């Protein structure tokens, strides 16, 4: 068991996601930065989809009730164990009675703590991910609170994993402000000039950005659209479409651009004009409130290449540790 002493800003149990229920309006949830989540699991000898703790800006203080091995990846929050700094992206040994404490992230937003055996809360619809809107998954369907006690999964001896680390050359750069997108979905609604302005603008991450969506402040979006006689059922605004399904990572134009993240609404009536490519969904989740991002258009083949590169890096990490 792991006992929560202090909660930090917001910490939830997340895994690779809950799939197969999008058609009833169930988003996948899961770790927003899947790269950091998977790497943390590999470091302690878990499978990619074991549940980790996702910490936001500042993580919790935790008391370990048993000997184990943990690793922290993602944003550096200056974690300490019994007051001693622990190296990031590295598996460290924890003894029963040890306290892990967390500072603030100065670069990036989210850290992931993996523990040997994974956080063993009861899966809901095939996943341990927390989805707070309807209160399912994770620990009682909510963010952690003081005195929560988290079960840890059964595992064999993992002492071999201690000292495992991911080479610094493979740590993502959390100051990168370019987010690659494939233009499409309802991008036909944008004028040529509107499309250029969307791609050329500096977009500031609004403070209303969370696991549901990232909102961006910047130029007016209404006049990026082509006027038309609105189709039946869409509604009168130029940004309205007949309600349709939204991909995770898509950018909907609802008064301002909103990138839909893993707890987002699954559909609605605003035009979506681009989809963030999967590796850059990880990157966006590490973009801090009030930072500025630019969207760069790539084609689908470039998107597939970027995904393959990311998968290859994770595979290299996994192999180097096994």
């Amino acid at each position, binding site marked *: 068991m792991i006992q929560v002493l202090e909660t930090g800003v917001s910490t939830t149990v997340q895994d690779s996601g809950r*799939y*197969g*229920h*999008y*058609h*009833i*309006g*169930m988003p996948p949830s899961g770790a927003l930065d899947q790269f950091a989540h998977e790497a943390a699991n590999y470091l302690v000898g878990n499978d990619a989809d074991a549940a980790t703790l996702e910490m936001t800006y500042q993580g919790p203080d935790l008391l370990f009730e048993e000997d184990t091995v943990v690793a922290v990846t993602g944003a550096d929050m200056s974690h300490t164990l019994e007051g001693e700094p622990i190296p990031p992206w590295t598996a460290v040994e924890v003894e029963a009675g040890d306290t892990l404490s967390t500072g603030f992230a100065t670069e990036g937003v989210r850290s992931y703590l993996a523990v040997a055996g994974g956080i063993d809360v009861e899966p809901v619809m095939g996943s341990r991910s927390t989805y707070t*809107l*309807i*209160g*399912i998954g994770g620990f009682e369907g909510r963010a952690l609170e003081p005195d929560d006690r988290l079960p840890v999964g059964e595992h064999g001896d993992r002492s071999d994993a201690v000292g495992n680390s991911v080479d610094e050359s493979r740590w993502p750069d959390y100051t990168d402000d370019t987010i690659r*997108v*494939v233009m*499409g*979905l*309802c*991008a*036909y609604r944008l004028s040529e000039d509107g499309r250029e302005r969307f791609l050329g603008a500096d977009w500031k991450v609004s403070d209303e950005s969370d696991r549901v969506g990232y909102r961006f402040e910047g130029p007016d979006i209404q006049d990026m659209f082509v006027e038309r006689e609105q*189709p*039946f*059922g*869409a*509604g*009168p*605004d130029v940004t*309205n*479409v*007949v*309600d*349709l*399904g*939204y*991909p*995770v*990572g*898509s950018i909907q134009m*609802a*008064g301002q651009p909103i990138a839909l993240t893993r707890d987002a*609404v*699954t*559909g*609605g*009536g605003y035009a979506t004009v681009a*989809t*963030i*490519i*999967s590796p850059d969904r990880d990157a966006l989740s590490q973009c801090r409130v009030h930072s500025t991002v630019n969207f760069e258009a790539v084609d*689908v083949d470039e*998107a*597939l290449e*970027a*995904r393959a590169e990311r*998968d290859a890096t994770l595979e290299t990490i996994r192999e180097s540790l096994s």
Partner: protein
Amino acid sequence: MSASIERQELPSPRYEYGGDDYVFVELAEDMSFDANFKAQAITTEIRDRGIDGLVEIAPSNASYLIQFDPGVLSPHELIAELKTVESEIDLSDYQWEAEVYEIPVLYDDPWTHETVMNFRDRHQDPDSTDLEYSARINGFDSAEAFIEHHAGAPHMVTMVGFVPGLPFCFQMVPRERQVEVPKYVQPRTNTPSRAVGFGGAFTAIYPVQGAGGYQLYGRTPVEVLDVDQELADFEESMVLPDPGDILNFRRIDRAEYDAIREEVEDGSYRYTRGSVEFLAGEFFADPDGYNEQLLEVVR
């Protein structure tokens, strides 16, 4: 009053890449039963074919969305496969087994009324209620007449989404009798759970409290989402209706609302429901007559 529903000629589908792992297919830009029935038929067929590498298959009002694993299947191959399905499927006639549910609604209820009044500054017409505004722009004499229209003919569930279990419902009448309303100028930050709202050409029932942009008309005492599956009618799934099911909104008063709510809360409530074989051809030919026939199972 028009007696039949005119079939719509649909354009060629528009296939779009959604990043590296989604394909979005728009069957029509405007809403029609034809576009929706095609979305349901195609996604059912895709599901039945068991194509390797598909993660999510989600039909929507006039489109559908597929998530896939690009490690198994390339998006180019997927689109080719979807075009094959499109060319092979028979869309001349539709029929399926539909569940008909009666959904009691307290129109102009105190909870949504309070919400409506709290967010007047985000509305097109701050001086009327959502009901008064919607009645006026659709040519009804009064909110009362508008409510009668809304509860006067059943609705088909054409999409489930936005949040888990939220049904989008399209009234089963010819287009010239369908009402259309805009969404709020700026979405509200609050909507009561079980609120009955309307935006574009769709009625929505909000399963949980949260943000929302639809005009609000009333509240139902019954659930459309039961996460813990405590009510008997949720034994198989945490969501009530599936796309293709039919909802009949029945106007109730406050006393009945309270009585039903009590039964829902103590777990004893049973929905008034029945199964029908929905025959699209008969519906298109004589919607009013056919609707009356469908509703016999809930009367």
